């Protein structure tokens, strides 16, 4: 309503615009009408609705499907709780302390649920797929990439020449190559660089390649954060008698990481989108499932339905991540020590 009023006011000032705006409004209406009528009438959603378990879990054994489904639902629930519950210091302290640990525990939980162990039967990684694989790839690579990226950033800003130059070389080379080449390299060459006896599965290879790649980007974002910390902070820490390591751990890094959160969020969202590249390299994650379905002659001409569905899912995941990051960014102390 407010937008309408603003538009009317705007058009009063710019008469030519009002003609154009009317045209655009007509166009938008037409597009909206066409899309809605396609979604409701013309589209045949059976290709999606009959394969919902496939999209969620891939070719996971049907009697064990509850495991990836449980993990996805726990993640969804945790996301909702984190978004709804206000985390402010003082109020709701309990939630602020428990939620981070819930998030951390989701990773081992996901691995156990997917792979088996602790009384659950083993499911080989080639049976993993769909949304559960997409999320697992994202979470595992992000968790590996973050510490490695922080180390690289510290090396890049170190005053020791050897550390600085080797980190810089790694970061620059990694940022120069396209991801798909790194993934291809990982798929083909990681086995060549390892002793013959050691064989690692394809999901792990992909995770390693994603993490090695993402770490270079994380390093640059963290470096931006490190550079934003005034030198006086380190000096103040030194005056208080903190060792360089303590100063880094207690004073510099927490602030630098907080500054880097928006950029790191973008990297995480990029990572989730990039897991779709594995569809080209033989893993059936979310996009791979869509591709496999469309290769089935029974679903010829159902491309648009599948792509719209996949697009909506990816959009949902990425938006949820962006919202989560905004929540983290706005909770806790800022640089000035005030609560945002």
């Amino acid at each position, binding site marked *: 309503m407010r*937008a309408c009023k*603003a*538009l009317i006011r*705007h058009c009063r*000032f*710019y008469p030519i*615009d009002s003609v154009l*705006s009317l045209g*655009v*409004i007509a166009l*938008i209406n037409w597009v909206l009408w066409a899309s809605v009528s396609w979604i409701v009438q013309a589209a045949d959603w059976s290709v999606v609705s009959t394969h919902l378990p496939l999209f969620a879990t891939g070719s996971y054994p049907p009697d064990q499907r509850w495991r990836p489904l449980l993990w996805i639902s726990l993640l969804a629930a945790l996301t909702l709780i984190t978004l709804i519950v206000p985390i402010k210091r003082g109020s709701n302290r309990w939630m602020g302390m428990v939620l981070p640990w819930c998030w951390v525990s989701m990773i081992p939980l996901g691995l156990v649920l997917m792979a088996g162990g602790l009384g659950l039967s083993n499911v080989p990684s080639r049976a993993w797929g769909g949304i559960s694989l997409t999320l697992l790839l994202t979470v595992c690579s992000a968790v590996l990439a973050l510490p490695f990226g922080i180390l690289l950033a510290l090396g890049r800003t170190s005053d*020791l*020449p*050897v*550390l600085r130059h*080797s980190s810089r070389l790694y970061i620059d*080379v990694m*940022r*120069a*190559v*396209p*991801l*798909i*080449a790194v993934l*291809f*390299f990982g798929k*083909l*060459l990681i*086995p*060549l*660089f*390892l*002793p*013959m006896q050691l064989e690692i599965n394809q999901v792990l290879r992909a995770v390693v390649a994603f993490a090695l790649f993402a770490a270079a980007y994380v390093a640059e974002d963290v470096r931006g954060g490190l550079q934003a910390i005034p030198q006086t902070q380190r000096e103040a820490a030194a005056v208080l008698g903190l060792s360089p390591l303590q100063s880094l751990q207690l004073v510099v890094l927490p602030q630098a990481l907080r500054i880097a959160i928006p950029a790191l969020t973008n990297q995480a*969202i990029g990572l989730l*989108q*990039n897991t*779709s*590249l594995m*569809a*080209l390299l033989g893993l059936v994650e979310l*996009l791979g499932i869509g*591709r496999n379905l*469309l290769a089935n002659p029974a679903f010829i001409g159902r*491309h*648009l339905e599948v*792509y719209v569905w*996949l*697009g909506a899912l*990816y*959009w949902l995941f*990425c*938006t949820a991540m*962006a919202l989560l990051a905004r929540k983290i960014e706005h909770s806790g102390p800022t640089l000035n020590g005030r609560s945002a």
Partner: protein
Amino acid sequence: MKGTRRWLLQLAVVVLLLTLMGVLINNLAVNLIRTGLGLSFSWLSRPTGFALAEHALPYRPSDSYAWALLVGWINSLKVISAGLVAATTLGVLAGSARRSTNPLLRGLAALYVSVVRQIPLLLQLFFWYFVALLGLPQSNPSPLGSLFSLTNQGIAILGVHLSVEFTAVLLGLSVFTGASIAEVVRGGLDSVPRGQWEAYRSLGLSERLGLRKVVLPQALPAILPGLSSQYLNLAKNSTLAIAVGYSDLYSVSDTSITQTGRAIEGFLLLLLSFLLLNLLINAVMQVLNRAVIRRGQRS
């Protein structure tokens, strides 16, 4: 005392890195001997035996791998340079639209950015190729006749024929990168103080003239660094062309590696080509950057 510790620490890092590399290279050598491969680049002069759908230079399957890679490199350059122009145009338009006085335009631009940036490029490429372009009719009689035709065989504009694969990659890259560039442009516009906008409006300049003469020149120094990183992203993302069968550098390398089994050599060549491409884009952007800074100092 502190100096010795610094040296010891660096020495430790060097030893660690060398050991790591030694172990990796040793494993590699063992594995290469085991598979009977060894390192060699002589395969580059052998005939490829595969056809390339698109080639700016004359190319036959009897030509060498080196030639095929060059043809692929030119195909990559073609789609990257066209993509840079299209993405920049789209990004600047959408980015400026987000700060337009027209709420409708603002809303449309915001919708474009928020939808496109949250969907993987690969999915978008599939959409452009399989739905938008291959979904076109076989023949599409248009009133413009020979000037412009749009069919599932490709696009013809004034006698220039663009293949469906090329068009799909171009559309995908420019729409996707355009959204990111729009964010960069918006950030740059926001870095110009509000007073400057109010000043040109109170001087009676039109929105378009004010944007061009007052705001953009001041926003450019903030926009250019972000822009060049988006350009590098576009160049790297162009390798996804393999998904729709456009024979770019990566796709040719991929086929060559699969046929010859020369993964390490192929990967090294790919790495070199991309380092070269990055240096090229960086150099161009640096020249631009300097020109902008110099202009800013003069005025």
